[in-house]
């Protein structure tokens, strides 16, 4: 190894042609060992640099996606979903106060209902602010946010007048003053045909925004993963080639620093790929099993709030009682669907679901071999019940279904009293269902809130887990890259020194 490499001995070609001379000289210089060493070093540094850049940008993309889902669009979408609940509750409290008439002590009392109304009104405002921020730049939805804001004002004027007229008329429970009823119908109609649909659509739209963000991010990270994998394989290949060159050229068995650099590059590549895959899985779980489920359940709470208020509307507006009874069934079917053509059939179906859970009726084969025409257990609760649930979630969903069945039982009793002509007992029964402490509806929403919290916790755990597996790489990637570069230098330097 003391002589200069054989390639450098061969002199430049003695060709006389003027323009061929520099090219030939360059070719000759490239054949010298020091030049090749420098070129291989450069190739290795570029390959490792490529790996670092692709890994860094993909990790950034994954962190951004996690940030948006976990702390920005995700929570905002959840807040927007609550707008619908707040509006439904405002109209529910109004209906209850009207139904109470002069008896302010029915159920949990008029004062409590008025407090709840004010709370829901404040919650609606808060949710509208969130919706406005989430839909910023989307003109169609911005118009809807504004329309709901304006509409709430109009609603409040209508029902404010209704309550005033009813108080002035001194209407006893269940005998709403005719003019008051007319004003309430206007307000409730505005709420149901205009405000609540727009609010519901805003909630859906924020889910769509979250979904689009999530999928774009996932696609970008998937592409980034291929780049990271590819550049990692390339870097390892270049380093291994370098090692082979040194072995052939310098007759050394191996260069320890270069082997370490190769191994470190491989570890970096695999580590980043595993972290990105892991955080991607965490993020998908946070979205699907956490956020999506929590939003579906929050819609189940909102529709049920509107549904139980149909009991009050059924009692306070006898002229439209058939309609309010039918709409009650339709909303109930949205919450938990079983095939039933009328309420009586529905009560039985709900009891069956509550009893057989975690098995769901209608999801199995029929014994008699006939084609199964039963569509199964559907609606918000049915869909959630079909998902993979953690044991605690399954148990709580069982409680929700039991509470929902109890609510339907109470509904049956209330309607039976009304059919028997005992209106005042029916009104008492209705106000007991809505009692803020121990009513059947409160039992249902309490159980549902517990389940929503469990899914919320799953959402947060998924985001935290994903962020944790990514955060290590914020320093590990630069540190690892520097280490690899130092090792390459350590491997090349002694060889280059031989040519000084």
């Amino acid at each position, binding site marked *: 190894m003391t002589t200069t490499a054989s390639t450098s001995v061969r002199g430049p070609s003695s060709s006389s042609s003027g323009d061929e001379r520099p090219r030939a000289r360059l070719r000759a210089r490239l054949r010298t060992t020091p030049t090749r060493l420098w070129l291989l070093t450069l190739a290795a540094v570029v390959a490792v640099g490529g790996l670092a850049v692709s890994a860094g940008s993909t990790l950034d993309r994954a962190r951004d996606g996690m940030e948006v889902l976990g702390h920005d669009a995700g929570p905002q979408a959840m807040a927007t979903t609550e707008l619908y609940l707040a509006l439904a509750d405002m109209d529910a409290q109004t209906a209850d106060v009207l139904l109470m008439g002069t008896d302010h002590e029915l159920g949990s009392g008029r004062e409590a209902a008025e407090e709840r109304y004010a709370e829901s009104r404040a919650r609606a405002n808060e949710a509208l602010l969130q919706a406005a921020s989430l839909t910023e730049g989307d003109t169609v939805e911005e118009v809807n946010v504004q329309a709901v804001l304006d509409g709430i004002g109009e609603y409040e004027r209508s029902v404010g007048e209704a309550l005033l007229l009813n108080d002035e008329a001194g209407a006893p429970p269940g005998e709403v003053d005719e003019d008051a009823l007319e004003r309430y119908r206007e307000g409730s109609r505005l709420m149901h045909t205009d405000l609540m649909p*727009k609010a*519901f659509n805003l909630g*859906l739209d924020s889910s769509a925004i979250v979904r689009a963000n999530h999928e774009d991010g996932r*696609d970008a990270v998937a592409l980034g993963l*291929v780049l990271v994998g590819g550049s990692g394989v390339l870097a390892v290949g270049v380093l291994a080639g370098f090692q082979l060159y040194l072995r052939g050229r310098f007759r050394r068995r191996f260069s320890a620093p270069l082997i370490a650099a190769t191994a470190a590059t491989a570890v970096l590549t695999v580590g980043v790929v595993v972290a990105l895959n892991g955080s991607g899985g965490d993020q998908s779980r946070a979205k699907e099993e956490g956020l999506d489920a929590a939003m579906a359940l929050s819609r189940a709470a909102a529709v049920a709030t509107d549904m139980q208020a149909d009991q009050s509307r059924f009692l306070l507006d006898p002229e439209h009682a058939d309609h309010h009874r039918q709409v009650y069934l339709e909303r109930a*079917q949205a919450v938990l*669907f079983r095939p039933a053509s009328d309420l009586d059939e529905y009560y039985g179906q709900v009891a069956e679901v509550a009893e057989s859970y975690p098995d769901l009726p209608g999801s199995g084969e029929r014994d008699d071999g006939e084609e199964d025409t039963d569509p199964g257990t559907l609606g918000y609760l049915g869909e959630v019940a079909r998902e993979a649930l953690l044991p605690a979630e399954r148990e709580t969903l069982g409680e929700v279904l039991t509470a929902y069945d109890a609510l339907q039982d109470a509904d049956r009793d209330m309607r039976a009293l009304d059919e028997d002509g005992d209106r005042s007992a029916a009104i008492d029964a209705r106000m007991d269902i809505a009692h803020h402490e121990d009513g059947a509806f409160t039992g249902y929403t309490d159980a549902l809130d517990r389940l929503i919290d469990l899914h919320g916790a799953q959402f947060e755990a998924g985001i935290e887990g994903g962020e944790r597996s990514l955060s290590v790489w914020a320093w590990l990637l630069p540190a690892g890259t520097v280490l690899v570069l130092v090792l390459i230098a350590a491997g090349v330097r002694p060889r280059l020194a031989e040519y000084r």
Partner: protein
Amino acid sequence: MRNRHRTTTPLLAAAAAGVLALAACSGPGEEPSVLEGDTITIGVKFDQPGLGLAENGGFSGFDVDVAHYLAEGMGFEREDVELVGVTSAEREDKIIGGEVDMVVATYSITPERKTEVTFGGPYYVAKQDILVRADEAGIDTVRDLEGHDVCQGEGSNSASRITDGLGIGATVADAPSYSSCIEWLSDERVDAVSTDDLILAGFLAEDPSAYRFVNNPFTDEKYGVGLPHGDVEACEAVNKAINGMYQDGTAGELLEGWFGSTDLELVKSVPQFEGCG
């Protein structure tokens, strides 16, 4: 030494393949959305006056105009939209079989159908109502149908909702179609026809002085836009377009244009969507 070199190469290759496979496995692999097509085929009714009616070699009606508006909002040029007639019974099969990309044909959203079809919208919420002859004096509410003959189209359960659901003692007559029901009503073979108010309004608009609504709506029929199951992207685009259709006043104009001559109370604000998930 050479041998060792030989064994490391396949190992390295295997490791590389492993990393690449792990990297690539998180890529998406779903069916392409209806939105990705160069053209769009939309199923509409061909026998429903005011909604979807085949005439003069084309289709006309509220649903047809809505279909064109939505297709434009989804990014399709007018000449890339093909309309085909579908019957009520074949709507699911044609979507599932891929014969049509989208259905706008008085297609009520139900939990059962949602297991097979993804619904955009609803673009309108019709209500079940009752149509009687204009000179019919005795029927003012649904309860007055007691003892009368009520017609429903074959395969429908509209009238059964009155008899079974509300427990009213009316006789149900099944006609081959709602057109026949209207003929029977005019011939006094039946006293009332019950189905979605928008369908009834379509018949009424053809002869506004002959019939009237009882105006006692009691169910919601959510007219949805049927799409292949799971096509969330197209569903969200449809919802966006429906939102636009109500905001720019097109929906109100179309409803007035097709049904304004009747006394039907038209809702001109955007309906509550079903959700695409």
